[in-house]
């Protein structure tokens, strides 16, 4: 186990005086007229497992490639550990990359693949071989040294790619959709492997992914990207519970979104008029009367019952769809105005009389569960 | 990074092939242009200089006589037109034979597909001169074809094919067929089978699907393959000389004759320049097909 305090525990980004390990300042990348990355600024701290999350075309891969040195920024600067990176070629940077396609050298054995980076550094062959053996043990590939990439399964190839990129002990490891090609079960196992390795070695990871579950599992912090810009940066909990925009709320997990206008302002409740009726939410500073905004309510915060419940927000509806998922059930409830809400509820063991299709139900949630989104 | 140095390794790699091509491919065209504007002389070299120093002054002598001579003598114009005609007909014939072959190979499963491709390419590796020569033995009046046809009673009199345009067409299609098949194959093999399946699923017949789906999608391959035949055939020399007769008028033969027989370098150059101009449009068509993704 490492001696330093894990970034996940120390949370240096909360400390104003902490020095960031990676400083991305005003980075823009244009291809012709199109800005793939648009004025992005980001600070990442040592030991973090930082995820860049977004859909296709949001610019996350381009940003990663600029960190690695495969693309030159049109504007802006990148500093890694205090060192300015502009003009520094990909082969001279203190970064290593794990490619989405793994990019293993097909004509070299696993051993030669992993040792390649060390040999380029000038490490002697015996030492390189010995360190390669250790690294292969770390990724649980002992005995695979002499095999060729085409003889390995997808999961094994992925671990070789990881070993190869870690063996040089880079200051920064960049991972491009590392788990994308794996099936679901393997992906879950590998996610925890990745965290374990990262914590053991203390290397700063930046991971690009479009899978929000993956981002939530792996990260110390997430940077959500859309159309070349960083939309929100924060710890997974913050991103989930306090999204700053409809885009982020919708991207992470499931959410119900109401569009409405601010109505009356009262000391501890605020009312927003929506198509489905008035919704109460916790007060937010700086809003004006009749201002248009969105309300986001997470499905698991909505309570479902056959009887009426006292709550800040209480509505009635009919169950349109029920999906039994094992650990929980997902309900689609149709309201009086025709719109459907997604509600999830944990399943108790051996429910005698579970709520089913076409039943009339009461749904309710607290004011605190209504998140106000001004964008 | 070494990119700031002028004499870097990277610049060397860029420079070497380009300088070679510029010196030995592009500059020669300028020389041809220059000599096409000269007069023939009994001298070494056998043409007049383009500029001379006379009494300390630079004197230019541009002679457009070669071009007007070509324009006036109908031989040249006819040769150009005839060459284009032969090239066009040969290309169409090659398409007619080559498209089904390319299609069949592209649709064949492995390992048959690789074997067939190998068979298409194999003749290409044997000498083209010798393969054209083979047709002499087949097509001449006392040749194999006539022997077989006479012996089997299909004809009474031997067919006169040798030294006619027909022989030239056969020779050209024969020689250039692989050039048409390969780009066409490269294009057809990339066609998504599921597109055809979708077509059948929506009720179209095989023939209709071919004309509506496969043919339009294979268009870049057709264009690329056709241009790879059409353009070089315009200037063909060997096939018309070996298989064609004195009536077979092709500009490649004319150019060869101007240089080797008439020793008239300026006219030969003028013939070449006009040939280049004639080829500009088909070359542009080829480039645009390449840009649309046809693989040569």
């Amino acid at each position, binding site marked *: 186990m490492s001696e330093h305090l894990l970034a996940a525990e120390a949370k240096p980004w909360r400390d104003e005086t902490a020095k960031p390990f990676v400083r991305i300042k005003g980075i823009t990348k244009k291809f012709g007229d199109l800005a793939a990355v648009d004025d992005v600024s980001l600070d990442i701290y040592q030991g973090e497992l930082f995820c860049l999350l977004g859909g296709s075309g949001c610019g996350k891969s381009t940003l990663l490639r600029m960190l690695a040195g495969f693309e030159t920024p049109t504007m802006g600067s990148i500093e890694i550990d205090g060192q300015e990176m502009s003009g520094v070629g990909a082969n001279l940077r203190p970064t290593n990359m794990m490619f989405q396609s793994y990019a293993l050298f097909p004509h070299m054995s696993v051993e030669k693949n992993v040792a390649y980076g060390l040999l380029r550094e000038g490490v002697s062959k015996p030492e390189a071989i010995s360190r390669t053996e250790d690294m292969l043990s770390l990724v649980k590939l002992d005995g695979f040294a002499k095999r060729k990439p085409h003889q390995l399964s997808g999961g094994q190839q992925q671990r070789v790619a990881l070993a190869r990129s870690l063996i040089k002990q880079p200051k920064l490891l960049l991972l491009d959709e590392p788990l994308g090609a794996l099936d679901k079960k393997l992906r879950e196992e590998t996610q925890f492997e990745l965290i374990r390795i990262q914590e053991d070695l203390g290397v700063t990871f930046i991971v690009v992914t479009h899978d929000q579950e993956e981002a939530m599992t792996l990260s110390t912090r997430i940077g959500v990207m859309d159309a070349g810009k960083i939309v929100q940066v924060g710890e997974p909990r913050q991103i989930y519970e306090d999204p700053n925009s409809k885009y982020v709320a919708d991207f992470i997990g499931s959410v119900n979104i109401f569009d409405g206008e601010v109505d009356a302002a009262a000391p501890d409740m605020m009312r927003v008029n929506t198509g489905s009726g008035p919704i109460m939410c916790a007060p937010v500073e700086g809003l004006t009367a009749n201002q248009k905004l969105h309300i986001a309510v997470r499905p698991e915060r909505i309570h479902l019952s056959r009887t009426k419940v006292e709550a800040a927000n209480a509505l009635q509806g009919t169950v349109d769809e029920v999906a039994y998922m094992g650990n929980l059930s997902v309900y689609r409830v149709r309201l009086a105005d025709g719109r459907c809400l997604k509600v999830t509820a944990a399943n108790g063991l051996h429910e005698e009389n579970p709520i089913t299709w076409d039943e009339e139900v009461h749904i309710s949630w607290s004011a605190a569960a209504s998140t106000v989104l001004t964008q | 990074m070494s990119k700031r140095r002028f004499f870097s390794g990277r610049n060397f790699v860029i420079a070497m092939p380009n300088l070679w*091509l510029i010196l030995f491919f592009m500059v020669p065209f300028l020389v041809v242009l220059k000599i096409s504007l000269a007069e023939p002389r009994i001298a070494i070299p056998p043409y007049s200089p383009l500029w001379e120093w006379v009494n300390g002054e630079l004197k230019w002598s541009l002679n457009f006589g070669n071009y007007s001579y070509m324009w006036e003598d109908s031989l040249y114009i006819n040769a150009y037109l005839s060459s284009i005609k032969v090239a066009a007909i040969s290309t169409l014939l090659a398409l007619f034979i080559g498209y089904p072959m390319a299609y069949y190979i592209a649709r064949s499963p492995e390992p048959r597909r690789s074997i067939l491709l190998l068979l298409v390419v194999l003749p290409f590796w044997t000498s083209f001169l010798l393969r054209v020569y083979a047709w002499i033995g087949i097509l001449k009046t006392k040749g194999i074809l006539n022997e077989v046809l006479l012996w089997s009673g299909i004809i009474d009199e031997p067919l006169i094919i040798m030294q006619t345009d027909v022989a030239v067409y056969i020779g050209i299609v024969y020689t250039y067929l692989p050039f048409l098949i390969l780009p066409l194959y490269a294009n057809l093999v990339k066609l998504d089978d599921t597109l055809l399946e979708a077509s059948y699923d929506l009720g179209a017949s095989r023939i209709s699907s071919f004309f509506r789906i496969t043919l339009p999608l294979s268009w870049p391959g057709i264009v690329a393959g056709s241009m790879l035949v059409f353009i070089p055939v315009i200037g063909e020399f060997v096939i018309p000389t070996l298989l064609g007769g004195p009536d077979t008028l092709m500009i490649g033969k004319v150019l060869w004759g101007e240089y080797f027989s008439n020793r008239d370098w300026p006219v*030969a150059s003028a013939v070449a320049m006009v040939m280049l101009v004639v080829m500009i449009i088909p070359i542009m068509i080829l480039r645009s097909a390449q840009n649309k993704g046809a693989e040569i």
Partner: protein
Amino acid sequence: MKLRFTPVMALFGFVFLYGPIVSLVVYSFNKSKLVTVWGGWSTKWYVELFQNDQIMSAAWLSLKIGVIAASVATVLGTMMAMVLVRFKRVRAKAAMTGMVTAPLVMPDVIIGLSLLLLFVAMEGMFGWPAGRGLTTILIAHITFCMAFVTVVVQSRLSDMDDSIEEAALDLGASPTRVFFDITLPMIAPALISGWLLAFTLSLDDLVISSFVSGPGATTLPMVIFSKVRLGVSPDINALASLIVLAVSIGIIISAILMRKKSK
């Protein structure tokens, strides 16, 4: 069996392609000189072929030229392919592509004449090349063969996953290292095809060699052409059969090697 249009046409096509080659080989064993008379099986034309000094020395010259021209053309052509596919931030790539495509379709008579005129002009201005012969043929062949190599290598390079080269760069290898460690092994088959293509084109070239050659440098195609203009000549058939044999063996060997590799 249903007679479908495509397979029938394809069969016809292959018969068309191979008929003449078969006839060449068969008649190389015909004792009689005439095509119309079958004089029985004989290998006398092969004997005559090997005793013909003119043909043999021309063949040797052509082989020499072929090997040298193909090798230089492969190096230059690969360089050009790398520039066009892998090098970023190079200006005038479109012009370079045009310059590489043109030799592929340019009629031989134009290439031959233009290079000859260049050599004559250069000789007049600089004294080099002094007279025409082996050197000028070499230069000419390298020039037009290079374009073919470029196309072959370019095709393989652009199909290749360039993230593998990026990975090597990322692990600290210099661009030169990346080329020799990673790129070269991966494009090796294309380099070999390119070399073979260049070799064949050089060996087979008649028109360009005729223009740029000089006294004492007569290539095999030039000898064949002058013989063949006069009519059928069975020793040429023998030569043709030997070439067909050599090519067939070569292709079969390479096919076997390819099958072995993919196992």
